[in-house]
């Protein structure tokens, strides 16, 4: 039991700012900003986009599971709401993808809010089951309404329109990467601020001991609802970005079903629950690995699953457990 408590409270909270750490952050940022334009290979840029995108999505997931103990097992369905919300808005009503980012966020936030109101009175596993069925219902609804969403035929999405003199035609991958850097920066900043705020403290308290938190007079359901809604809103933004980056959406299992949720969940767990930044590192590690071993086919997923099992059993803090050696 002491092990659990120790593993779920990362030592990062009292992180001090030392010159060494500042230097490390600067180097990492420089690599992040510098590598894709310097290497200038579409393949590398795509890998960086996938890694940063899924890493950020996994960090948002960490807000739910790592900071409040809520498993959203229909997460991919929530991403689908953001992706399809924005894509359909531009497809049917000609709304700019830039506004679509917000539309995707608001729609998914609304779904999260409603699902949250329904679910969050209940305990752990019920949340997982409820969100799972919500996610599946979303996905099946998309595939069953081909007149509106084009279903399994796939919905082609508009690229972002040019802005500030930047050309967002799809072949300008680097601009998509920089846009993602900005989005990820804003979202990660927001998450970091949130988990260190008073609200974040409440999240951690209710994850550690719900009853004790309640007896201190905190309305735990309310805080869970905040957590869930905010996470869904941010996930929706990422979903909308994904839609306009990827070019075509279809409600398959691998894109918006269980395998995608498992992929994100693995990134979060490998990064280390409740570590927030760990998810980004795990994103680059796992997606990089996945792209490098494209030829492995199904072995790739076997390795993903085994890694998840291994982390669950033997490395419960994930990559964040290595922090004391390198940070």
């Amino acid at each position, binding site marked *: *039991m002491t*092990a*659990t408590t120790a593993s779920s409270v990362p030592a990062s909270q009292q992180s001090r700012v030392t010159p060494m750490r500042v230097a490390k952050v600067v180097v990492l940022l420089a690599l992040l900003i510098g590598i894709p334009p310097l290497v200038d290979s579409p393949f590398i840029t795509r890998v960086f986009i996938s890694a940063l995108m899924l890493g950020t999505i996994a960090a948002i997931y960490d807000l739910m599971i790592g900071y409040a*103990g809520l*498993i959203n097992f229909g997460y991919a369905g929530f991403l689908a709401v953001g992706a399809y919300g924005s894509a359909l808005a531009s497809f049917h009503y000609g709304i700019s993808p830039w506004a679509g980012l917000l539309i995707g966020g608001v729609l998914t936030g609304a779904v999260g809010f409603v699902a949250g109101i*329904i*679910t*969050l*009175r*209940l*305990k*752990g*596993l*019920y949340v*997982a*089951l*409820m969100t*799972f*069925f*919500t996610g*599946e*219902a979303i996905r*099946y*609804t998309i*595939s*069953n309404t081909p007149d509106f969403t084009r279903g399994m035929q796939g919905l082609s999405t508009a690229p972002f329109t040019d802005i500030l003199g930047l050309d967002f035609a799809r072949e300008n991958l680097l601009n998509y990467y920089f846009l993602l850097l900005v989005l990820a920066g804003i979202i990660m900043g927001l998450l970091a601020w949130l988990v260190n705020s008073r609200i974040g403290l409440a999240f951690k308290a209710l994850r550690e001991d*719900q009853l004790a938190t309640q007896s201190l007079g905190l309305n*735990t*359901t309310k805080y*869970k609802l905040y957590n869930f809604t905010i996470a869904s809103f941010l996930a929706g933004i990422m979903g909308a970005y994904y839609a306009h980056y990827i070019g075509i959406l279809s409600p398959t*299992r691998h894109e918006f079903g*269980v*395998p995608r949720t*498992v992929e994100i*969940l*693995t990134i979060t*767990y490998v990064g280390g629950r409740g570590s927030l930044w760990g998810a980004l590192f795990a994103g680059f590690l796992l997606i990089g690995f996945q792209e490098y071993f494209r030829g492995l*086919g*199904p*072995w790739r*997923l*076997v390795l*993903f*699953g*085994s890694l*998840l*099992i291994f982390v*669950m*059993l*033997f490395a*419960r803090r994930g990559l964040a457990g290595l922090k004391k050696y390198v940070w």
Partner: protein
Amino acid sequence: MDYSMLLEPGILAQVLSQGLVRGSMYALMASGLSLIFGIMGVKNFAHGELFMLGTYVMFFALAVLGLPFPLGILLAAVVLFFVGMGIERTLIETLRKRAGRDWLLDAFVLTIGMMVVLQNLAQIVFGSDRRGVTGLIEGTFVSGSIVISYERIMIVCVAALVGVLLWAFLAFTNFGKAIRATSQDPDAAQTLGIDIARIYTLTFGIGAALAGLAGALLISIYPAYPTVGFQPVIKSIACVILGGLGYVPGAIVAALLLGVIEAYSVFFMASGWQNVLTAGLVVLILIFRPAGLFNSAKVERA
């Protein structure tokens, strides 16, 4: 569409038998899931992969070894019993010992990992071909306009027999009593000298055997392929929720109901909407009766 045709005995019997066959499969799956949940608190998301392994054992028993089908079904149940016990001993017990207080949520994630690994290993070993065996029993039962294949009757009968055996095992044997005691109060059971770790292993084995048996029994409808377990596991999770988490009889009733409802729903909606229907039903139940349809027990609310 003319709904009056639904009342013709021939069509009624057709749809009902189809619904009961589906329902039997859901019931076998759901009772295993519910047993594991009721006793260990673990929600086994890899249950569909145990079903999948059952279909492969059955296929190889029949098509490669040339065994008669009752032996194939038995073999699937036995093999999966040991696979289940092995999984519990190596993975789930390790987790239970290491994770402490909140291990159940972690166990759920662990079974997700197991699902991914088993599914893709099957993909690697067997490829994605569908390997089915049809016509376990030839012939149909005919009475007036009612026509039902003997195979459907066999499936429902075997499932019912297994249900009765399971009930008798839990009600009358010492192991069964120890299992029930553990589900009521693990600490008290341990004080009375019951080896909890052994009960957990056995329970997981039985649940896995039921899943394997379901897979073997339905080989002619669900051929063996790596992702065959996905629909059955979703539906049986739904039944477990509808019947009340951990309450086996409730899960069985819910399974039969869901099977029949799904069979009938084909008349009213395009087949793709069945999954939305199931998911919608579950969501409604979780909102209004989170303890399930037939369970008066209280749900732990947050």
